[in-house]
């Protein structure tokens, strides 16, 4: 096991976060460490034990990803890390490295305050990549339609408008669907839990109206430009013909700025 002597960015970030929210205070104390403290903690455990823990952590992350549910740091500590809490940062770093190296999966933080993670793919889907097709594939189709409607209509869409269009596709919130079952639940609950969509009440509306926005997972897994390309393909038009949307899709959000070192994997 190589002992890394250089400063670890994740740890130094933690030390500066001591002024975090009150709820985090107690948690943060164990996550904020000086470099020497971290070193000493590592040495408390044997290399085999650490290796085993990293393996378990990777398993845990893959299991949580089964249902595409975001992963909370608190759960990671409670269910996997447990008494190895003092080296949490190192464990997570190694798990992240393993996921990237072996599977090509990137562990992304979608909520830096509450420390919530998802897995996204570093490999681009190409022609001939015959992935298994199942119910989740159908659900993705539905989700993409909704994301398209939201984006093309200016990044927010009223719930009633969404259902109006979906009805044309034989998808009705009042009826049980062949592929989706309880569609209303799928769209307003499952997709929201998975962080694909945000479902918010429009203030000062009575009876209450709701609107949809893209969720943080959608922002990471796809992009405005990609969805514009999808719409363009379906409608057989040039993406540039949607002038407003095309311009909107050109703004690169900070979270999606291209990472320089994607290919340089040591």
């Amino acid at each position: 096991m190589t002992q890394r002597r250089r400063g670890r960015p994740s740890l130094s970030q933690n030390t500066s976060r001591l002024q975090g929210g009150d709820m985090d205070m107690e948690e943060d104390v164990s996550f904020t460490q000086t470099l020497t403290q971290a070193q000493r903690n590592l040495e408390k455990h044997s290399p085999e034990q650490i290796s085993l823990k990293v393996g378990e952590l990777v398993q845990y992350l893959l299991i949580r990803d089964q249902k595409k549910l975001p992963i909370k740091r608190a759960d990671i500590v409670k269910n996997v890390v447990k008494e190895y809490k003092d080296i949490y940062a190192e464990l997570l770093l190694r798990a992240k490295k393993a996921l990237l190296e072996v599977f090509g999966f990137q562990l992304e933080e979608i909520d830096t305050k509450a420390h919530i993670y998802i897995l996204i793919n570093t490999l681009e889907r190409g022609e001939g990549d015959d992935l298994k097709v199942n119910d989740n594939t159908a659900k993705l189709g539905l989700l993409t339609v909704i994301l398209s409607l939201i984006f093309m209509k200016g990044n927010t869409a009223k719930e009633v408008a969404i259902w109006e269009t979906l009805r044309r596709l034989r998808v009705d919130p009042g009826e049980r669907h062949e592929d989706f079952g309880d569609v209303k639940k799928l769209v307003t609950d499952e997709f929201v839990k998975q962080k694909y969509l945000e479902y918010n009440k429009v203030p000062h509306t009575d009876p209450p109206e709701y609107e949809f926005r893209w969720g943080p997972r959608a922002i990471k897994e796809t992009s405005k430009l990609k969805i514009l390309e999808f719409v363009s393909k379906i409608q057989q038009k040039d993406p540039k013909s949607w002038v407003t949307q095309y311009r909107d899709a050109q703004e690169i959000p900070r979270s999606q700025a291209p990472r320089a070192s994607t290919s340089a994997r040591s």
Partner: protein
Amino acid sequence: MSSRRSSIDEEHEENHMDGDFEVEQDDGSRRQIRHQYRELMQNMQQNRDDMLSSRSNKLTDTLQAANQLFAEVFKPREAALDAQLLVLATNLGKEKASQLQADMTVFDPTSFAEDLLSFMGINRLENPDSDSEDEACAKGYLGADAWKKLGTEAEKYFKRTPTFHFMLGSFKTEPPIVRQKTDRQKRTSKVAEKKVMPAQLKKMEESHQEATEKEVERILGFLQTYFREDPDTPISFFDFVIDPNSFARTVENMFHVSFIIRDGFARIKLDQDKLPVIEPINQESGSQVDIDNQPRYQGVISLSHQDWKEIVDTFEITEPMIPPS
């Protein structure tokens, strides 16, 4: 096109200025040209929608055809038709351009839904009793895999990770329900009856089996002898099976000892150091052991050449407890 036209006009003018010069053109071909012009114009009017569609190049094609025709025009009558066609085409062009601008800014969810249905492979049927309250544009049958087809296309636009699924370890191991033992015992007694081996050995397997049985018996004999001499000390498994002179014989010993354990003549336990020890089991009734009612645990041990050497050194084994046959 306009530049070409002006050069021809110039030519015409020049011709007229000369006064006497006139192009030879018979009435038949002139009539044909006028006919073709009228056809083009009729076509434009009848296929108006098609011409207007942003997906169609028919308008351009029509103008190109008109260009070619104009090469044959030398008289005012035909030229007038050409001008007429141009007016029609210009109007269409203007309308098409304004429509293009509308396409550029407005996203129409209805049209999007229509295109989605087409992509998913909707089967549009002629339905005379179509429901007037039906919001869907046309009655049609959406196939079973329609959404899966759309989803497969959608995957290309996402950086989604595939998911890992497994069964092992997802539930707690529990002892299975023990079934009625009657059938089993029936079979074992059958075997006992037919235990007489045929006099003539036809197969290699049979003679091999006999040799194995002999060896197993021999080893069991040694085990029982050692234990009779010193009943209170359990024998270390490795001390027993290891032959310090031959790795191959060690493996064979382990193989034969496994039969002894399987048939219930001996058992393996772990001592206080968690090391395996072997001890024979007292037999009550002949050779028939109540195999089925004993609690059983399966243990698998494999040994590499390296392991064997290490054990010989660590345990300081100098002589085999099972002498070679």
